[in-house]
């Protein structure tokens, strides 16, 4: 996304309700800044994230997608984040093959206590995606305004 001629990557962050969404709230409570272009979507568990959602985001112009879940072993639903880890490692390598660089996608474990980690992760991830430039590969031109 270009803003005033400057590239600001659009990041979609899927956060699980129990750990990472609470972690994001904690970042807010502590006023830990991260870029405005990070937009959070709440899901009950990171394993709710269908690969389709990620493809859709890239198609619609997202520059990076990050999935945040509970730390391994801490999943509210016992094993959901393990599913996420497996599914996403497959999906990301396939996306990489398609030209969506591995750096544009990420799975990160953020607990409800890790507000600082959430903010730091978002800053770092945004920077990494910014370094890659705009996502062109999967962008659907018909969706362009």
């Amino acid at each position, binding site marked *: 996304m270009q803003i005033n001629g400057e590239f600001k990557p659009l990041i979609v962050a899927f956060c699980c309700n129990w750990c990472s969404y609470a972690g994001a709230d904690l970042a807010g409570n502590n006023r830990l*800044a991260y870029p405005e272009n990070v*937009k*959070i979507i709440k899901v009950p568990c990171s*394993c*709710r994230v269908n690969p389709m959602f990620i493809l859709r985001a890239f198609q619609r112009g*997202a520059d990076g997608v990050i999935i945040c879940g509970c730390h391994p072993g801490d999943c509210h639903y016992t094993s959901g984040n393990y599913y996420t880890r497996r599914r996403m490692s497959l999906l990301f390598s396939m996306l990489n093959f398609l030209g969506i660089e591995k750096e544009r996608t990420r799975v990160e474990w953020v607990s409800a206590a890790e507000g600082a980690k959430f903010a730091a992760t978002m800053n770092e991830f945004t920077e990494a995606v910014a370094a890659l430039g705009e996502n062109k590969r999967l962008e659907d031109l018909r969706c362009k305004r």
Partner: protein
Amino acid sequence: MQRIGVFVCWCGSNIAGTVDVKAVAEALKNEPGVVFSTDYQYMCSQAGQDIIKNAIKEHNLSGIVVCSCSPRMHEQTFRKTAQAAGLNPYMVEISNIREQCSWVHKDMEKGTEKAIILGKAAIAKVNLNAPLTPGESPVTKRALVIGGGIAGIQTALDIADAGFPVDIVETKPTIGGKMAQLDKTFPTLDCAACILTPKMVDAGQSDKIRIFSYSEVSQVKGFVGNFDVTIKKKARYVKEDLCTGCGLCTEKCPQKKVPNEFNLGMDNRRAIYIPFAQAVPKVATIDADYCTMLKSGKCGVCSKVCTAGAIDYTQKDEYIEEKYGAIVVATGYNPISMDKFDEYAYNQSKDVITSLEFERLTNAAGPTAGKLLRPSDNKHPHTIVFVQCVGSRCANCAEKGKEYCSKICCMYTAKHAMLTRDKYPDTDVYVFYIDVRTPGKSFDEFYRRAVEEYGVHYIKGMVGKIAPEGDVLKVQASDLINNKQIHIDADLVVLAAAIEPDKSARPLATMLTASMDTNDFFTEAHPKLRPVESPTAGVFLSGACQGPKDIPETVAQAGAAASKVIGLLAKDKLMGNPCVAHSNELMCNGCSSCERVCPYGAITYSDKEFRMPDRTVAIRRVASVNEAVCQGCGACTVACPSGAMDLKGFANNQIVAEVDAICK
């Protein structure tokens, strides 16, 4: 088309300081479906809630979006507000423009822009929301406790005390478990029987508690509040209702050479037996593996001496079906086998024993009537070596021991050493330890007393080899403080064997769809905050089946599990979470992918009849979700290849709509 109202909160200056709330309300006015949009200083205040209620009625709203703080803060508040105005509470969406916008951004322009986008995403979602009603299910007001040790007994007593009926299922002929075998209990040294047997009697006499002894759970169906359980009552060849527990048969039975498991095989019992004097129920049991009558049809002595006519050689296993609202697992632990640790010569010498065997040797009701005599020659041992951590803290756990610390060994070894020195000051007692772990109330003081007052020799090091030679045990060990290898001629060696969950736990976990860790301990729903609940709703954990525990901890957990059960049984109906998975049967292709990923066993498959477009009837295998069991994680929705499985409240099209709104 929905009729949506948008309510933008200022949160004083918390939001309004970084976000132009009026601009947000104005911008969202033109989104599809929005018929009303406003802003207010404090939406969560009574006045703010009134604005929402009035707008719902006035504009006949079918859904609302509140742009405010995190839903973790006030989602419930606004759902109640909506409900009060006649709107389904699940038609409310919160757009988090405080924690995730105004508080983390400083630029007014960019903050406002982001708030508008977040608002749009919420509106896009509400457009696709449908009213949801939580499912209701009745609660059977009866609890099942599996395992009749101190954990199970305490849980059952506490539940019964609250007025609910409880059944205890115990595989042994009596309740009491491991604690009944112990002599004294640390750190206060009260006698185990003195504090346990009154509880056993209470359980036996309570009109709320039924004890199924010599029984096993053979099948579990159903879900929280509505479990259908089949209990197998093994044939004990004695009519429980007639047997008075007089014990005459156990004295007259001619088969005297049956290893007595209660004394860990250190003496013998008869083929018909009552495990110990205070057994509950105090009913005899015939051991079919040894009874001559049952094996060859010749004998019948017990039947002849029984004046109550309780002996019944024709008894068969009996299956009992019962309904329960809650299940408590209290299957306990066992010491591990010492077969893989024969450097300690457990299989070569009778005088190398485990700590539990030592308990029996010092117990007044044990094989030596409480005198400390070593098993080989019934002589009083003068040098005793205790070896700690036998099989605990092993990294090569797959082949040999256990990776975890068994937790109770340091304390019971200190107890054994202290009691030995107390009763027999002429004995030398050595304890080989890696670390002495005593984190518990009055625990370290207890251990120090063993060292300082009772003169127990604690040696930092490990035993490497034990060689029986003549009537001594040659113990070769290390003394790490002095960098020495030391050799002790011992009369008795006691091994602190690691403990492991009972073998019945694994098949039981499968029946209950309750999860276990790699060591076969039951997993708790949350390691800190829900320590007595299993992740499977309605299944609770009590005692060492969840992890190594001493008696105080076990009793505390037993009470905690009971309180959770009481909380469940006190409800007449269970309100489910309406945000659960559901399957579109017309799209389902019967592949079982969802069933396999479900952590709760909430998905079942069945054959159903469908009318096909050509008016024929076809039978197809389709998935259906048990809404009372589903917890709404959504793992199945991603596994489903046909898109039949979806999650209410977080549907595929709703999330896609949010993605679209954000990426536009």
